[in-house]
């Protein structure tokens, strides 16, 4: 009985959130595809031809996994940040708070929709970028696992941002000033072992390095750290971030007076 009620509530929330981002798909899904296409054409094709092999692959092949993951994580992050903040701002989060929905179910519903948006954006980038590469997916299962876990991690992080945001400016501050630099400096465009000391060592403190590298390894079978680190670190960080998001919602921090 309870399981049916909870399942229906979860479905309702996920469908509502998916409808929300599909209603404005031009605004929500297209920018990642356009950005990734421009990067692939300019850097992968025009500039990359002169670079030769990078990280054991052509530059276009090297670039593509990072761009796919960039689309996955930014879409997942932005989805929960904006939808949760919007629900707080318009107060329709109260529709969930009065209903028989435990905090974990609210977090799970928002995260599921965000993961779906992240994977959709990533799949679109992959579809457009693949013809510009000679890439064969080396480990598809690992690639999917890293993509899903990364999307989940960033959906939780976005939810936390959405909980604490006081204005629309606050919803973009973390994405612009923390997330994007971490991704750009996390080995999307270059192998970190090419950096001079101490930046090569300092880069190892950037969690995006492991995520990007693990995803690249699962696609190219080439990487600096190997996907072992990714599959070790990513689930732990994802669970911890998810627990923090759940705790904040359960306690009603910045949600209930």
């Amino acid at each position, binding site marked *: 009985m*309870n399981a*049916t*009620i*909870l399942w*229906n*509530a979860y*479905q*309702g*929330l996920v*469908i*509502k959130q998916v*409808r*929300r981002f599909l*209603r404005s798909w031009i605004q929500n899904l297209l920018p990642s595809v356009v950005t990734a296409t421009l990067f692939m054409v300019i850097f992968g094709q025009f500039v990359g031809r002169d670079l030769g092999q990078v990280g054991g692959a052509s530059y276009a092949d090297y670039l593509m996994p990072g761009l796919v993951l960039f689309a996955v994580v930014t879409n997942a992050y932005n989805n929960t940040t904006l939808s949760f903040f*919007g*629900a707080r701002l*318009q*107060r*329709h989060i*109260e*529709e*969930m*708070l*009065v*209903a*028989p*929905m*435990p905090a974990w179910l609210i977090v799970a519903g928002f995260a599921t929709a965000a993961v779906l948006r992240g994977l959709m954006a990533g799949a679109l980038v992959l579809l457009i970028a693949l013809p510009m590469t000679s890439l064969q997916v080396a480990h598809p299962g690992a690639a999917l696992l890293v993509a899903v876990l990364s999307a989940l991690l960033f959906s939780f992080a976005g939810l936390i941002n959405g909980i604490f945001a006081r204005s629309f400016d606050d919803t973009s501050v973390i994405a612009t000033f923390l997330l994007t630099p971490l991704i750009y400096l996390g080995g999307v465009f270059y192998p970190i072992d090419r950096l001079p000391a101490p930046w090569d060592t300092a880069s190892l403190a950037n969690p995006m390095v492991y995520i990007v590298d693990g995803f690249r390894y699962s696609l190219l079978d080439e990487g600096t750290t190997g996907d072992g680190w990714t599959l070790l670190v990513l689930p732990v960080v994802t669970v911890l971030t998810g627990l923090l998001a759940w705790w904040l919602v359960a*306690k*009603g921090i910045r949600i*209930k*007076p």
Partner: protein
Amino acid sequence: MTAAIDLRGLRKTYKGGQAALDGVDLSVERGAFQGLLGPNGAGKSTLIGLMTGLVRIETGSVRLFGHDPERNPVAARRRVGLVPQEVNFNSFEPINEIIATQGRYYGLSRRAARQRTQAVLERVGLAERAARKPWGLSGGMKRRLMMARALVHEPGLLILDEPTAGLDVEARRDTWALLRELNAGGTTVLMSSHYLEEMRDLCQQVAVLKDGRLIANDTPAQLFGADAGSGTGDQGLEARFLRLLEGGEPEEEGEP
């Protein structure tokens, strides 16, 4: 049989030390029509927020149909519907999606949510606008939409925070008729309002809050006097209500 609502020792202090509630006990039997009355800032909305999960419980306990909503939200909340004081739906969603999604949140299947959405929208007179977004709705229509949303899962307990505030006479009377019909069908109703006539004519019992304390909980006849009419004169409801807030008793029938 357990009460529909059982509140014990509820206290709530907001940031800055403002005490909104100070040890409120209240029990509402199943099938009752309970009023909640008090001046602005008395703690009515806070009390409703604590009952419905919108405000964090600080001290005291809330039981809905015998269940603790913190520990067992499914059992406690699935039979409760809320019509809030302020608009709190997503203006970018079509009306029928707002209602159906709320039904899903309460555990209805997709088909049941669709059927109930149609039924409640017809009941509140918004069926023709079902597929539209609520941008163009008047204040009264927005209230009807929130009423429909609260009823989609056929709650056994309906809680309304000033549901008729700002409504014209006709809309207010429609709301009264709907509430009477629901209560006659067995739904427990708890309603806050500033309209004393509403309290007198609809409620079987009226709880009066002042400065976060429950200062009375009695039948309208006991609170306002059996002969209390409307108006602003000495015998009017307003005068009797003000005397009640000042700590005076309602005057006996026949006294000047």
